[in-house]
């Protein structure tokens, strides 16, 4: 079966097996190990690059069962293939919402753990792993190991953010957040340039959610002009989960649609949404958290060759700011930025060995796959790595091994855990092979 990530680059022919329980999964691992093959877990395939790609993948499609939900404290136990969308549909009507959610609700819990995903509330609530009570991991040897912050903590710290390389997460228990409405109160602030938006981030550091849309094509004094959106769960209102759906993008959209001019037009549109004075609105959780989910299969907009997403983080402070300036200038000069550029201030890093977030600024944008882009991104890696920052693995399809190693200082500690739980390296993705991980 032809398989890729959300960016549809790279694509490869993969054998997909979808175990219906721990027993079947263990038997499949045993068979693969005996024949010297590699495998990697795969959830909803919302990672952009080759993190969930291998000649053989273990799909968690059938591990889609809820196991327990305690309505009194919001603790929910699920199999790893359950999606945040399914959790929300079940728990929102009872007043509970995921404590951390990425920009799409169509991710599996296993995928959210493996990438230790973050949301617009990272600066106050940290990443996904912080809200896990425990998880159960199927290791290469076929054992099922329970781990959590205080139980097999080393394995837990390697698994949260470990990109599936420690084993297959089978189940996890999550702590949800209580909410009293399905609406978000949000305020949009307009920022003329990068310094102003960074200022606004610190000013609003007490807000639960904050994120900015940034115009990557703006240059000179307007470099980094953006819209900052801060939000809170509304204090009261309906609790229904909104139905999913929305129009789908047909398979063969001409890639001309993504030409430089339409990208500029898109940015201008977003920019014009903010007025000079802060604008207050109340909107549903779906348009707020998951604006892109409204257009199903929007990844097809980039055409046949697919696209790359580049997400970086640089540390807070003067060096980081300077690096961010240089990154934005390099992108603006290249004229290859996407209409989707998101800027956010992260809170402190956690102890997970390969987790992406660190205290600093993160920027994410898309690039259509074309030969010149790879060299551009290599240059960005130099700037980011040089500033002590890093690139997000679940978005990556092209990072080089040496650059990755420099960006992830706890690489060796991670490899030590892996050597213990998977000495034969049964679990490997196209990405881990490329990164020599």
């Amino acid at each position, binding site marked *: 079966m032809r398989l890729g990530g959300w960016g549809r680059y790279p694509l490869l022919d993969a054998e997909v097996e979808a175990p219906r329980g721990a027993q079947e999964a263990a038997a499949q691992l045993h068979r693969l190990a005996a024949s010297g093959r590699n495998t990697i877990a795969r959830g909803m395939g919302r990672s952009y690059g080759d993190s969930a790609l291998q000649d053989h993948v273990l799909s968690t499609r059938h591990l889609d069962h809820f*196991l327990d939900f305690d309505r009194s404290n919001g603790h929910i136990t699920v199999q790893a293939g359950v999606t945040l969308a399914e959790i929300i549909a079940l728990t929102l009507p009872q007043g509970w919402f995921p404590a951390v959610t990425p920009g799409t609700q169509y991710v599996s819990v296993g995928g959210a753990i493996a990438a230790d995903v973050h949301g617009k509330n990272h600066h106050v609530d940290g990443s996904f792993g912080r809200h896990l009570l425990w998880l159960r991991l199927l290791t290469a040897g076929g054992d099922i190991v329970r781990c959590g912050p205080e139980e097999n903590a080393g394995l837990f710290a390697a698994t949260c953010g470990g990109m599936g390389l420690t084993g297959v997460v089978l189940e996890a228990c999550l702590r949800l957040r209580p909410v009293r409405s399905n609406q978000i109160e949000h305020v949009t602030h307009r920022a003329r340039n990068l310094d102003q938006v960074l200022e606004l981030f610190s000013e609003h550091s007490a807000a639960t959610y904050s994120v900015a849309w940034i115009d990557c094509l703006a240059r000179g004094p307007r470099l980094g002009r953006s819209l900052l959106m801060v939000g809170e769960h509304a204090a009261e209102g309906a609790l229904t989960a909104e139905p999913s759906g929305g129009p789908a993008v047909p398979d063969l959209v001409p890639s001309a649609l993504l030409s430089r001019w339409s990208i500029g037009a898109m940015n201008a549109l977003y920019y014009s949404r903010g007025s000079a004075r802060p604008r207050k609105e109340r909107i549903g959780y779906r348009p707020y958290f998951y604006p892109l989910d409204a257009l199903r299969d929007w990844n097809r907009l980039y055409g046949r060759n697919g696209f790359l997403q580049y997400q970086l983080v640089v540390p807070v402070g003067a060096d980081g700011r300077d690096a961010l300036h240089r990154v934005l200038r390099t992108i603006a000069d290249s004229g290859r930025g996407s209409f989707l550029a998101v800027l956010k201030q992260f809170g402190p890093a956690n102890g997970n060995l390969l987790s992406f977030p660190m205290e600093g600024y993160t920027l994410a944008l898309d690039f259509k796959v074309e030969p010149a882009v790879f060299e551009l991104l290599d240059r960005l890696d130099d700037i980011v790595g040089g500033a002590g920052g890093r690139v997000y693995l679940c978005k990556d399809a092209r990072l080089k091994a040496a650059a990755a190693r420099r960006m992830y200082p706890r690489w060796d500690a991670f490899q030590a855990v892996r050597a213990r739980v998977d000495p034969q390296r049964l679990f490997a993705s196209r990405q881990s092979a490329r990164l020599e991980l």
Partner: protein
Amino acid sequence: MKKILIVGATSAIAEAVARRFAARGERLYLIGRDAARLETMAADLKVRGAADARHGCLDLNEYGLHAMAVQQALTALGGLDAALIAHGTLGDQKACEADFTLALRELETNALSTISLLTHLANEFEHRGGGLIAVIGSVAGDRGRGSNYVYGTAKAAVETFTEGLRCRLFKSGVGVLLVKPGFVDTPMTQRFKKGPLWASPDRVAGSIVRAMDRRADVIYTPWFWRLIMGIIKAIPRPLFKRLKL
């Protein structure tokens, strides 16, 4: 709140049906042969809203255990409003051609075990004077085809059996529903290449639940299979035997 028995509950189609019943708060009893998966499924259905979800575990080719299994379900549920029989296997036609013991096994799983269960359930429901029995057959039972006539034979037997049973139970107020799915993307059909005619288990489950609610007699699902099978049945035999279907 209805009391519903689901046989072959770990089937992808049956599970999708069970989830829809759970969301409505029904009381469920599951029968299958994989205890671990039944347990997981029961937990899931309770979280999804089922008033209760219990299970019994047996290989359905053990006909001798059917009476007891049905009694256990009745006791656990405290009565019975409806039953769905969903188990089945899609055996290897070529292997069945070469070895009758394999063909027999297919006929047992897909026809005889179902007929045994129907016999027990029919007597229970008739005695109670109401209820509904739903069975999953297949479009494959509509006409014997060279590529899978053993499976087709079993499904045709179930069709004829339910047809007669429906007539017998009509005066007792017991409904008999035969569901005839087309291509459904489930573990049973994992090895096939999928195309536009394929439906998801959830879509098929939606039509099964609606058909059970309105106490239909026979449905094709998705609906367009009624047209497709109409054409296939209309092909004259001299031509049909030359086709590779």
